[in-house]
């Protein structure tokens, strides 16, 4: 049955094929002028330079040189400066370079020259490490994160020493028991992805102060309490979409994207408009 209808249309299709009355004249005309058209089309093909692809390739090259400079400038402007309780300045180099890293300093207390000069005898190898914790967190929701950090600090038996929250920037200085520090850090790290946080942990030994108080038979309870307390600050900053892309795709993402557009447009033009 189906074959029948196919046969009907097959015969019909063949019967419908025809040549125009002026077939030979048209054929000669087309073929006779084909050389001129080919020449014209050649000229057109030459004129059809892939400007779109070249423009994007050019932009890719420009972006390759300009983008790192822009990012460096952005990073410099937004560099952070932390200061721990011992007065040691710790500077963050900006968002893209240090984010996602944890910097741990076994810092020497610069206010004690005899320690720095090696005058402290090595026979006493006790460690009374005082930990300072600083973190730089980048987020799109500064307020929410600031509130969460406060809750976490208080949840671990800590206290908020200072607090400053604005739309795009927040700083929280806090103190909390040393035994809760690891759990606290874990929760802080869970707040954002690793790429969006830079931690800076410094520790210095208070042995000279302990020895000093021991020599003078003073009560060193205050010192020991200080050691048992972790102090720190968390800085929360708003992050732009541009910086998020840079964090994930690397510093040359725009150059790469433009180069890909140039290549894709060239391939598209070459194979789909031919």
């Amino acid at each position: 049955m189906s074959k029948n209808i196919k046969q009907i249309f097959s015969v019909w299709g063949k019967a419908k094929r025809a040549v125009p009355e002026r077939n030979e004249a048209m054929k000669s005309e087309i073929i006779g002028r084909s050389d001129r058209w080919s020449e014209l089309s050649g000229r057109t093909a030459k004129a059809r330079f892939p400007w779109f692809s070249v423009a994007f390739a050019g932009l890719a090259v420009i972006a390759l040189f300009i983008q790192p400079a822009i990012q460096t400038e952005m990073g410099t402007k937004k560099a952070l400066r932390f200061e721990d309780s011992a007065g040691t300045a710790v500077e963050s180099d900006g968002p893209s370079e240090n984010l996602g890293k944890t910097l741990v300093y076994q810092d020497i207390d610069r206010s004690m020259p005899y320690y720095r000069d090696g005058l402290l005898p090595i026979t006493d190898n006790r460690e009374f490490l005082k930990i300072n914790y600083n973190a730089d967190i980048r987020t799109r929701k500064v307020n929410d994160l600031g509130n969460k950090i406060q809750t976490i600090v208080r949840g671990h038996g800590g206290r908020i020493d200072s607090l400053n929250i604005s739309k795009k920037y927040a700083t929280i200085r806090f103190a909390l028991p040393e035994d809760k520090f690891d759990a606290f850090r874990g929760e802080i790290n869970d707040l954002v992805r690793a790429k969006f946080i830079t931690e800076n942990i410094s520790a210095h030994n208070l042995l000279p102060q302990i020895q000093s108080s021991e020599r003078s038979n003073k009560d060193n309870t205050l010192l020991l309490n200080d050691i048992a307390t972790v102090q720190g600050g968390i800085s929360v900053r708003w992050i732009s979409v541009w910086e998020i892309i840079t964090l994930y795709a690397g510093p040359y993402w725009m150059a790469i994207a433009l180069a890909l557009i140039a290549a894709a447009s060239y391939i598209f033009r070459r194979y789909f408009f031919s």
Partner: protein
Amino acid sequence: MTPQEEKSLVEKAQKGDRAALGQLWDGLTPKLFGYLLNTLRDKPLAEDMLQNTWIKAVAALPSFRHRRSAGFGAWLFAIARNECNQHWRKAGREVYFDPIEHDMPDEKSASVENEMLAEQILARLPENDRELLRLRYIADLSVDEIAKILKINFIAVRVRVHRALKRAQQYV
């Protein structure tokens, strides 16, 4: 004309071989003109469209690249179809199918009855089905080639042709 012959002729024509272009004309013009005539229902207009189609095809021939799924024939029909669409856009209306007025079967044909039957069936089918059947049976294009011309999936073309034939079968 087999696809290999067609490809070879196109390559020769691209190098400026007039005889090869002539052979392409001879091989493809009957199908193309038959398609245009059946689509436009107007002989002078079909001749104009045929000429325009070939002019455009020859002008763009150096940049044509043969593909396995769609050869020169399919490309030519795509140009012809665009020409028809442009004409209808400018004219502002489509010429409706009227076999009595425009396209009575040729009395000299050996299969007049078959042709009349086919025309009667086509008259009752929607334009989309008619277009598919024209491309399939007058232009003698493969499903892949029709898919390229209509810019749809080849499976969709296969299904649509099957459905069109099924609908046509009802009117036999």
